[in-house]
């Protein structure tokens, strides 16, 4: 098992480094001279040189990368070009909001997907299965930002029961108020994941129901909810953990868009504005951060999976 962790740990580090290369190299290759943002015509040549020197633009690419990476490891993502405040500070201020939204969406999608998937798998091809499967197909095919817009139109503009944007009403920091604001973005964010999970759990359930041990359990008089709970549930949970890891990517990317549709004050909106004005330090920080959330999330999922499946504990590394 230790071998397994080491292998996954190395993967974690490699992918993180690659993401950092990518975020840095891409910005580096961006059109336009970064220094143009800081300079203006009134400066003398020496001043321009000094600023360029300061920004480290005179050094070679590997040197620049290493300079940037060193700072990142210390937690310093530099200064925002747009408002000249520390990028790290801005991120830290907004990160909780994003994590709240992402966390809630994840939890919601798992909590709903399990019973729905189990049930539609158990009642394969009945009307209940058809409805659930149909809804999950739609969930997979709907552009999330559009769903957000439609929800806003229906619930905020027409029905006036939910707020149309933001995280809090002015002056109201209560929990209930936050929940009201969170309902629509959360549903929107979790929907596509929900759809994928349901389909997965459903097919997993169907597969398991064909196993001999399920037949043996039925021969003991275990059917219906009892069967699902005792035998099927545990074995669907295992792969869900890895699924969660894989779909973390779509939640991270999704939150990016959803936050702007709903005006949710998280790092997504921060990045959006940054992209609009080409605020490279912020963009790099956002890519790096999201990449890390993703990679770490996957890693945690792998670890949990190893603990959950008693068979992995004995398995050799002889796969794939």
């Amino acid at each position, binding site marked *: 098992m230790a071998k397994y962790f080491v292998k996954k740990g190395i993967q974690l580090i490699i*992918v993180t480094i690659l993401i950092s290369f990518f975020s840095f190299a891409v910005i580096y290759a961006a059109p336009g001279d970064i220094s143009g943002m800081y300079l203006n015509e009134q400066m003398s040549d020496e001043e321009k040189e000094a600023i360029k020197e300061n920004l480290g633009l005179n050094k070679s690419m590997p040197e620049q990368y290493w300079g940037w990476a060193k700072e990142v490891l210390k937690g310093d993502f530099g200064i925002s070009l747009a408002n000249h405040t520390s990028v790290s500070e801005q991120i830290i201020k907004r990160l909780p909001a994003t994590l709240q939204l992402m966390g809630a969406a994840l939890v919601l999608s798992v909590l709903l997907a399990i019973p729905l998937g189990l049930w539609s798998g158990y009642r394969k091809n009945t009307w209940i299965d058809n409805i659930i499967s149909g809804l999950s197909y739609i969930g997979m095919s709907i*552009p999330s930002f559009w769903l957000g817009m439609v929800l806003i139109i229906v619930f905020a503009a027409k029905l006036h029961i939910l707020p149309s944007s933001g995280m809090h009403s002015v002056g109201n920091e209560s929990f209930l108020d936050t929940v009201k604001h969170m309902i629509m973005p959360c549903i929107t964010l979790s929907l596509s994941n929900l759809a994928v999970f349901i389909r997965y759990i459903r097919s997993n359930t169907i597969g398991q129901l064909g196993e001999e041990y399920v037949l043996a359990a039925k021969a003991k008089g275990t059917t219906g909810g009892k069967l699902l709970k005792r035998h099927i549930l545990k074995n669907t949970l295992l792969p869900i953990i890895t699924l969660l890891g894989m779909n973390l990517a779509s939640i991270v990317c999704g939150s990016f868009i959803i936050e702007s549709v709903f005006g949710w004050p998280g790092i997504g909106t921060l990045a959006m504005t940054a992209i609009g004005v080409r605020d490279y330090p912020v963009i790099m920080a956002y890519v790096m951060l999201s990449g890390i959330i993703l990679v770490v999330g996957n890693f945690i999922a792998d670890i949990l999976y190893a603990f959950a499946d008693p068979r992995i504990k004995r398995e050799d590394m002889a796969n794939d």
Partner: protein
Amino acid sequence: MTDTRFKRIEKKKTQELISYDHSVWKDIKKELFSNKIALVSIIILLIIIIASILAPLSPYDPNKINVAEKLQGISAKHIFGTDEYGRDYFTRALYGGRISLTVGFCSMIMTVILGTAIGITSGYFGGKVDMFLMRFTDIFLALPSMLLMVVLNTILRPGLFTLIAVLSLFSWAQVARITRAETMSVKERDYVTAARNLGAGSFRIAVEHIVPNIMGPVIVAASLGIANAILMESSLSFLGLGVQIPRASWGSMLQSAQGHILDAPRLAVFPGVLILCTVLSFNLLGDVLRTALEPKIVK
């Protein structure tokens, strides 16, 4: 008198082996035509595609600004009403469809070509080639694609080609995985060994023997791939990173619709419904194809 029926029979009638005749294409056709969902999907897609192709037949110019007629509701003259610049929304939707569908198809084709080429090469040659290519593919699979697509689109010069290239860049890995697995199972079959023994070169074997036999899953991946590409393109365009003005795709129409959620919600509804129907149909089609290709006993 011995009853002749009780005479021993020397030659016994062996039961004729019922031949179960099937081929991949027959399977597909049968499934598609009997499955109602598949039929409805195909019809919807045909309607949308044909309507988009016929877009130039519309009497309206999708780009002509006519402020006098702005934001009109649904009427006989304007089936979808007009947008904030007075342009006929239905016509714009049709033209938007052309862009969205084109991007979807083209990126799917690039994805399939890239993915299949790498997948077959990796699967067929095995060994170090396989290992190297698979690590490469794994990296692409692990990268958070949407994110990086956004970043890439920011950096590179915006345009249709960039869009298609970037979309393909992050989708081929999935196809490569599938084709590699299929290739590895096909290459062990006897007809491949026979061809090799007859001296056929690798490229020839690949084209003549391997490709036809892995077409099934590739077709499924293609259908799902178009669905995915259209979804991603609409997201990117919504963010302003995809198709640029004056060209409009369904996604970018949604971006401008955002500003009028309150006074003209239909501007948001129509393109979204079109995206939903198209993507849903491709997804359903892909799924039906996938079940059709599963091995079954056929009469």
